[in-house]
Every structure is written in structure tokens, then in C-alpha cells.
């Protein structure tokens, strides 16, 4: 029951990214024809740093995460772009190469740990099995290592709990078990897909604290998929905001929160009630996000935007690079938005 300080921001990353997504495009077959779900998404993940991908339902954030893991199955498919990891393009890698990388060098933690764990094996057995098949460890050594990993993610009485089954774990403990499993093979990159969305706020705080500590210990790069602006502000270093399948803004978290350069980001930041602020009425973005089925020409946000002009409905703004380096916005009026002139 410790008092902890919300982790201070880290220095900007130096050197080359450990994982780069370049111009990723993903399509899904629907009853109404082929629909683009992710378009031209580029991301860089650095060692020891966290990139948050922020978006609402249908924004394409989870599909992006799954693409990196090679988890896109029909009716979906990757139609373009690259996922560059350790000198290889995972999109074009052979099935065998992929198998060695995803799950091992790149691991993922899902929102719903109960459906991701196997109900008929004990938690300890599931972690141990991974170590035996992927690391060739003996049964005994793998079991001992599984207990170590469970202790490391702060599961109390790990020795005893390793013998228990997923249904005997609470939501928070299951999420810890998932994290232990993801860390078992010492990944270079961890993808956390809404890792705390299903959890209560006191448990969410524990899990995010744990993930940041583990990142400091291991130096792994992290992609945090979330819709929660508070979680982004407290844990991420850089941020990519997705809307209707595209990145509409990216940059360092403190930069983007202090001076958003896209009206959607700005609207989101205004629309949430805050514990440290009093407002009469909340700022509300009108309308609702376009679904995959009714994507429009021009800017996908134009219909809900408070500063849209005629150009926005006819021409789609490219993601333009801004300063400082790494900052970008896909808005025709990004300069004005950035400087608060509109």
C-alpha cells in the first residue's frame, strides 16, 4: 500500500527505433464490399519508451496492433506497407520467421485476459509450457521459472497460485498472469492492447505502475493501445491519435496535450471532465465517428469539426510534419489550430 509518485517523463529516445511501421494499410471484406480499416499508418517504437495509440472504437488502433503481431486473418488482410523489426519486414516474412518473432520478440497483452488464457491448464503450467516449447527448458526448470515470473509481476503467494486456474484469479491477477506470460520470452517490444480497460481504477493503477517498472527493468519498447487520455498522459512518451483508420496527429505526449495541432485531439482533450477543474457544461464534439462502411472523401473528421472549411470536405489533408521533430498533424488548418488562432 505504498505511496508512489506518478512516473516522471523520460528523456526523448535516442538512436534508431526497435520497431517501425511504415504506411500500413489493412482492408476487410464486408457484405458491402472491401473496406479500408487502416490506412497509411506509420509508427516508431523506441527501446525503453512507450508509444500510445489513442483512438475511439473503430479507429483502427487494435487492428494496427494486431497487424504488427501478424494476427490479421481473413476477411482482413494487410494490403500495403511494412512492419520493420531487426532488419526484417514482418509483412513479407515467411510463416516460420514470423512465428519466431511474434509472441517471442514482440509480445502482446490483451484487454480480456480471461479469454486469452486457457481455462483447463493452471496458470503456472501455461507459462511453463511456453518456456518448454520455445526455450527447450526442462519441465522442472520451466515450472520454477514460471513461479519466478509470477512473483515478478507481483502476484502474491506465486508458488501456490501457479497451481490455480484462470477462473480462480481476479481480473487484476489474470492481467498480471498475462503480463508474466508476455514477458516470459523477454520480448523487445510489448504491445498492450487496452490492458486496463476492463479493470477497476485502483487495479488499473497497480497494473500501469507494474508495466512501467518492468519497462524500466527490461528496456522493452511498448505500444499502448488505449482510449483513455489519463492513462496516456501518465504513462506514454509519444502519442499517435487515430481517427477513422488514419493517424491524424502525433508527437510527444506533453507537446500534444499542451498544444494539440488537430481539432479532433483538441476536442477530445476538452470533452473530458477533470478532477482538477470545474466546468459548467462539457465541450462536446458533435456527431459520431464514421463507421468503416461510410468513409468519406476529404477529411473524415470534417463533418464534426468546429473549424472545417470547404476544402476539408473535398480534399483529404496529408499528415504534415511539424516542429519539433516527430510532431505531425493531418489538418488543413494545423498551423492555426496549433497556435490557438482558430
Amino acid at each position, binding site marked *: *500500500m*505504498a*505511496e*508512489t*509518485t*506518478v*512516473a*516522471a*517523463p523520460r528523456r526523448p529516445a535516442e538512436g534508431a527505433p526497435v520497431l517501425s511501421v511504415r504506411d500500413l494499410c489493412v482492408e476487410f471484406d464486408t457484405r458491402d464490399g472491401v473496406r479500408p480499416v487502416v490506412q497509411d499508418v506509420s509508427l516508431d517504437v523506441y527501446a525503453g519508451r512507450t508509444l500510445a495509440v489513442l483512438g*475511439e*472504437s473503430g479507429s483502427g488502433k487494435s487492428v494496427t496492433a494486431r497487424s504488427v503481431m501478424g494476427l490479421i486473418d481473413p476477411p482482413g488482410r494487410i494490403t500495403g506497407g511494412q512492419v520493420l523489426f531487426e532488419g526484417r519486414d514482418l509483412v513479407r516474412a515467411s510463416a516460420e520467421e514470423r512465428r519466431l518473432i511474434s509472441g517471442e520478440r514482440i509480445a502482446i497483452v490483451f484487454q480480456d485476459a480471461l479469454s486469452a488464457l486457457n481455462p483447463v491448464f493452471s496458470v503456472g503450467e501455461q507459462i511453463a509450457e511456453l518456456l518448454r516449447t520455445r526455450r527447450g527448458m526442462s519441465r522442472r526448470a520451466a515450472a520454477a521459472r514460471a513461479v519466478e515470473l509470477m512473483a515478478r509481476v507481483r502476484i*502474491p503467494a506465486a508458488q501456490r497460485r501457479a497451481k490455480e486456474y484462470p477462473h480462480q484469479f*481476479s*481480473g*487484476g*491477477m489474470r492481467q498480471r498472469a498475462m503480463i508474466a506470460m508476455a514477458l516470459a520470452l523477454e520480448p523487445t517490444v510489448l504491445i498492450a492492447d487496452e490492458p486496463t480497460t476492463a479493470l*477497476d*481504477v*485502483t*487495479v*488499473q*493503477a*497497480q497494473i*500501469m*505502475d507494474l508495466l512501467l517498472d518492468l519497462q524500466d527493468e527490461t528496456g522493452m519498447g511498448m505500444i499502448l493501445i488505449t*482510449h*483513455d*487520455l*489519463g*492513462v*496516456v*498522459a*501518465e*504513462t506514454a512518451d509519444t502519442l499517435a491519435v487515430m481517427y477513422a483508420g488514419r493517424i491524424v496527429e502525433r508527437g510527444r*505526449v*506533453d507537446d500534444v*496535450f*499542451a498544444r494539440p495541432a488537430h481539432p479532433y485531439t483538441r*476536442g*477530445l*482533450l476538452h*470533452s*473530458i*471532465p*477533470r*478532477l*482538477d477543474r470545474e*466546468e459548467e*457544461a*462539457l*465541450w*462536446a*464534439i*458533435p456527431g*459520431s*465517428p464514421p*463507421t468503416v462502411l461510410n468513409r468519406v472523401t476529404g477529411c473524415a473528421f470534417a463533418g*464534426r469539426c468546429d473549424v472545417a472549411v470547404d476544402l476539408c470536405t473535398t480534399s483529404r489533408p496529408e499528415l504534415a510534419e511539424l516542429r519539433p521533430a516527430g510532431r505531425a498533424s493531418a489538418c488543413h488548418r494545423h498551423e492555426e489550430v496549433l497556435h490557438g488562432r482558430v
Partner: protein
Amino acid sequence: MAASEPVLSVENLTRHFTGRRGLPGRPAPAVRAVDGVSFQLHAGETLGIVGESGCGKSTLARMIVGLETPTSGVVRFRGTDVHSVRGRQARELRRRVQIVLQDPYTSLNPRRTVRELLRQPFEIHRDLLPRKQQAARIAELVELVGLDPDHLDRYPFQFSGGQRQRIGIARALALSPDVIVCDEPVSALDVSIQAQVVNLFQRLQRELGLAYVFIAHDLSVVRHISDRVGVMYLGKLAELGSRRDVYDNPRHPYTSALLSAVPMPDPQLRGRRTRRLLEGDPPSPVDPPSGCRFRTRCWRATDECATVEPLLAGDDRHRQAFACHHPMPVQADPATA
């Protein structure tokens, strides 16, 4: 406001769920979902109820609107015990206290159009409105919640989550209630839609004088919308008071820990804000801890907490009530300090 008669009064409300059978030779275990909750709600007021999953807040909501029968305790609407009346009088009371549920995806019949969904309340309460006036009332409701009148003949699946929640709200408003119990009404909605629906609730309250019991796990939303706030833990109220008192000056350690766990959407606070991390999860309501239910996670707990259950009580100087033997110290008011 305190002088007026409350529109809703909940007195020592309790709901235990008993399992079909227990272990041989032992009584069936009871889930003490709600265990002695009391509060009053005044006209035009919003009482927020916060708490984590399993704290009993949804069972409380269902008992208030009569969807669940209390094991003991009373829910009074303007003085009348909601659960003891029958027939016509019961129907009349039900009409005055409505509920809006979390999930607009499952709480609306998918095979009925919006028009049919909104007509249903008048079919159940036939004496309320002559048939001829129903169409006009439905049009009025649709306008009130900001739905497109041209979409009345659409089905729920043709609407987005936010619009579906508007349909749910319109239905709750149909019979002109005095109280709406909102059970996690914005939790399933996207961030950009949440604000629209929260603003709608506030506008309707101003225009119609509604009183809300607003149940949610999102502490920021509850703070924004509430006049008073109750914090629930394992079936009991840990703290109850004005929004300002509870949020700015939490006295129960659980309230304090809960507030400190909320991530702030401000990166400037990083490295400066401290937080108290609670260990573990809330214990099971089947077998709650003796004494204070929070003691197993509480850093201030003493032996006394295991043996003597603290009762919800206020102190003289500070109006909020809290159930704790070792309350958090009163913070200096930043406005006067």
C-alpha cells in the same frame, strides 16, 4: 433544500443473494450485495454513487426502481414505500422513478422501431395519455433528447451507441418521471460521445427538474454531474457528502485511494503527483471482512477495525459522513489557506 421533503429516501436497504445450496452441513452462502445503505435524494438534485465492480451499485439501482426486491430496508418515493404498494398505486410509483441502463445495445428490443419503443410506455400506462396525443408526445421526446425526427421508423441497430443511449433516455422520460436512476449511462460510450450525453442529462435536469441517482465508476464524470456523492465499498457506503467535501477532502481512506488512482489527463503532473497504490482487489461480498470491510486493503487499519464496524457518521464541523475509525485528516481549504 435540506428543509424540503426528499423525493426519494432509501433506508437501511439490504439485498442478499442466496446460492441454491452450500457445502453439505453448512448454510448456503449469501452474497451480501447491498448491506444497509441509506440516503435521501431531493428534487432537482443529482446524487452520484461511485464504487468498483462488485460494490453493489447496480443492485442498489435495481432496488430503487423496483426491479429487485430488497431483503430488508425501505425505498420511499415521496414518503410511500415503493415495495409495499400493489396494483394501480405501484404502477403509478414505477412511472415516477425510471432507469437508464449502461448498455443501449442490449436494453432496447432490436425488433422494434424507435417509434414503437417510445410508444410502449404509454401502452403499459394506458390511462396516462389519450392515443391521439401519443404521436405528439413522441415527437416532443425525440426533440428533447436531440434525435432526428426523420429516424423514428429506424431500428436500434441503425443508430450509433450515443444515439441509442438517447433513445434509452427518451424512453425513461416518456412518462414524465421525477427521478431517473442512471446505471453507468456513459461507460459504454466513446469519449467524444460521453460529453454529449452528460450534457444532455444536465440540460434535461434544468429543463424538467429531474432528480438523478447517477451511478458510475468514472470518478471524473460523477464529480462533474453530481451535487452530492456517495462512495460504496462491498455493499456499504464508505462516505457520503457534498461533491466538494468528498472530492476535495476525502475522509475515508478508500475514497482517498480511489481518487488518487484516477489517471490525470495532464502530462505536466508527472513526477509531481503522488498516488497511493492499494494492494489486491476488493474481497468477495460472500465473505466480507469482519469489522470495517476496507481494513484488508487499508494502510491505516488497526486491531479495532477488525472487531468494531465503523458506522457512517459525520463529524460536527464537516458535513460529510464517513464510516472510518481512523479518518484522513482534514485538508486545509486551498481557498482560505
